[in-house]
């Protein structure tokens, strides 16, 4: 049978008129690299689970998307990351919420699925599990970009709610 792969890099109040060409090109290139990473797995007969992890890791490493490096930040100025993964062949699943030190949270979600009896781990406990599993760690400075700090400052200065459309999706 034929393989298929679909990726997304977020949705929201994305308006062409407000996008700089270089930003749009970077986003398109990031999505294409993610597709290529998944395609490499699937075209050689690999598993869907491995393909989606490969694709998501590319997007987490790309600062143009709200995940991993480049994630939006909390009111306290921290990056708190969430991720989940599910295998349709077994309905095994893993998820993490509010993690702060794993370079690729999707890998941590998969570790929860494969290396623990649980489905979801959160916050400090999930960070500890990540270290115990030997997953690659990253400092907060890795995740937080200067433009995200600026966005948070602007949001606070204008007394905007986190639910304001412009910020709702990061």
């Amino acid at each position: 049978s034929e393989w298929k792969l679909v990726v997304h890099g977020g949705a929201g109040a994305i308006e062409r008129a407000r996008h700089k060409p270089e930003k749009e090109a970077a986003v398109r290139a990031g999505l294409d690299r993610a597709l290529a990473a998944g395609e490499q797995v699937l075209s050689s007969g690999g598993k869907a689970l491995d393909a989606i992890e490969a694709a998501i890791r590319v997007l987490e490493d790309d600062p143009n998307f709200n995940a991993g490096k480049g994630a939006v930040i909390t009111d306290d100025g921290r990056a708190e990351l969430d991720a989940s993964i599910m295998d349709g062949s077994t309905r095994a699943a893993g998820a993490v919420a509010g993690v702060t030190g794993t370079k690729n949270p999707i890998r941590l979600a998969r570790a929860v699925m494969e290396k623990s009896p649980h489905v979801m781990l959160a916050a400090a406990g999930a960070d500890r599990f990540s270290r115990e599993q030997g997953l690659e760690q990253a400092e907060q400075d890795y995740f937080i970009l200067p433009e995200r700090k600026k966005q948070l400052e602007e949001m606070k200065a204008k007394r905007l709610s986190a639910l304001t459309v412009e910020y709702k999706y990061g």
Partner: protein
Amino acid sequence: TVGAVALDSHGHVAAGTSTGGMMGKKWGRVGDSPVIGAGTYADDRACAVSATGWGEYFIRAGVAHEICARIRHKGEDAQTAADAVLAEVKSLGGDGGVIVVTPKGERVFSFNTKGMYRGMADATGRKVALY
């Protein structure tokens, strides 16, 4: 938020989602991305789904599982199921989008926002779209 869904050559599907969440969030707020059944779900009997959007509404609508359930129990095609559930999200006051693949080879997007960064690939090539 980023995500991916895939169908492999063995007929199995999988889904994943990863996010930094909402800018300026407080109180340990968590959205739908890590909630199995809301932001992510995969079942070889129906489909694989990854969602992005206003998480509180996606949790309340149980978006990812709901799409799979409609396909499995009502026999809907993936586009019909995804559009119906996104319409339900909108009726609750939320917005966002989903990507879906099925074991039959369907691959669809559905979103009720101005844009969604998305891409698809198969043996014939790759395609990326934003708006």
